[in-house]
């Protein structure tokens, strides 16, 4: 595809959600790579060199996505790759200090989206994050 807008890495253990997001993003001209857990995520991060990472916060039954984002930010080469975090409804609560929805140190992500993610909103958010660079 000559008019590829950018490469997105989706890290989510729910195969169906990952698949539906992939199809939506591909339909809008993005290249998509996928990983089902944190371990595969780091492998793909190296191999695919994505422009954006979509990360499920509550992977593997616990906050694996949360840990992944912190670990990713510690490596210089991924420090500037934007992260869009997908959370369950009201799941953010436990991860924030009161009155502070974004904390670059504690939870170093660029944007949040709540499940179920509307495809239009997703495409819009992805375009926004990629356009910021």
């Amino acid at each position: 595809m000559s008019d590829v807008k950018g490469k997105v890495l989706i890290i989510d253990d729910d195969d169906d959600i990952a698949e539906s997001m992939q199809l939506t993003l591909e339909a809008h001209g993005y290249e998509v790579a996928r990983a089902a857990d944190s371990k595969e995520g780091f492998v793909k991060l190296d191999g695919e060199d994505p422009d954006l990472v979509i990360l499920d916060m509550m992977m593997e039954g616990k906050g694996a996505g949360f840990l992944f984002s912190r670990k990713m930010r510690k490596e210089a080469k991924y420090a500037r790759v934007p992260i869009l975090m997908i959370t369950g409804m009201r799941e953010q609560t436990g991860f924030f200090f009161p009155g502070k929805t974004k904390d670059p140190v504690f939870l170093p992500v660029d944007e949040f989206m709540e499940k179920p993610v509307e495809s239009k909103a997703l495409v819009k958010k992805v375009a926004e994050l990629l356009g910021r660079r």
Partner: protein
Amino acid sequence: MSIGTKLITVSTAVIVLVMGIGGAIALSVRERAIVKLMGAEAVRHAQTIKKSLRHHMLANKPEDAQWIVETIGRQKDIDEIRLFNKTGKVMLSSKRENIGTKVDARSEGCTRCHKPGLQSPPDLPPVEASGMIAGEGGKQLIAVMDTIENEPACHACHPARKKILGNLQVLFSFDRASRQLAAGRRELLFSMLLLIALIAAAQAVFTYAQVILPIKRLTRDTERIAAGELPLEVTTTQSDELGDLARRFSLMAKSLREARERDRDFAEELSRKVTLATADLDAANKRLIEADRARSRFVREVSHQLRSQLASVKNCLAVVREGHAATPEKRDDMIARAERKARLLGELVRDLLDLAHIEEGPAARHQEAVRLDAVVERSVESLRWKAEEKGVRLETRLDPGLPAVEADPRELGIMLDNLVDNAIKYSRQDGVVSVRASEERGSLVLSVQDDGIGVPGEDKDRIFEEFYRTSSASAHEKEGTGLGLCIVKRLAEAYGASVEVRSEPDKGSVFTVRFPAKNRPPPSV
């Protein structure tokens, strides 16, 4: 003033009084006896003198008589010996200078027998006529009077008409006796004082030892009891009332101590019980809090599951609706995914209802005699399509003649369905799942065996928790509700049965449910 001082003072005073009176009486008796004795002696002397004088008077030798009077008059204790006539004129006297003087008729020596001025002689024997009189210078004298009667021998010189020739008076000095009496009084006083001191000391010692000391001991013991310090024993060997009191007191103290010990034991027991009860309450409260937390966690987890699955369904359908599936195959795949998620949602709801039903307890249970082989057959049949889909072979091994079990057939079905479903899910492709019903030592046993991935040792207990999945399980199969084994465990608990899993990684697992023997219905059913 202490009772001891009072006792000693009073008793000493009584002793002094009694001894004083006794001493005085004794003294006066003794003095009277001495006076009487001396009187008798004086009378004897007087008679001797009278006899001695008789001869010289008959011989008409007044000088010799005077000589005898003087000689005898020189004897110890004799104050004067005199003879006087009817008129009171002294004829002879041991004191020569008194011869010729007149006796005072009014003096005591005369008035004892004669009425003053009257010369009528009383007829008294000499002893009775003797007595104590006050002499010159206030000295005490014992006077003895005797008469010298006219007898025929005297008629030579004295006319016969005269009856009395003269009066003989012997005056004894009481001085020596008086000195002796004084010495006797002193002795008596001294010995009495000594006796009083001894008796007083003895009774003081006795009173102190027998009364004061025991009272002091009792007082000290009562003070100790009052201070909360209980003596073990009141020691006494006394056999009197005080000893009795001390022993009764000891008994009282003992029963008091026992009562106090009983109280203390009771209080300790009570405090121990309260502590235990409090600990029980705390534990119960903790369990409640823990149960409450577990419930909250469970609700949170259930909502998360429901939302995630719903989000999946929605997203998959949205992809199809918005035409994002590039190919018809992709579109069909999305629809199939949505269907699968919807089915999973249905299963989740079904499992939640099953759990809710189990939690309702025996009230929601319809027990009857259930044949295990029938339950196994029905369960295996209902899941055969799933097994075939995966190429898994389903086997049953049912021991013949198995007794019935008292249970709700629907619940047994749910238990078995979950076990078999679980086995199919985790068995390998083209594997074998074997369901067995048997009787072991009176217990009915259900076991489901697979040859799948197995359960890691560290997860063997946790797989029965709700939504718990082993790491190998989540990698292998994501389509479970995460509640199946939890339901199995809860149902087994409801029937008093045990569930255990034996497993070896990559070789398979065996889940065994063992019913207690008492779960059998009566044979007649």
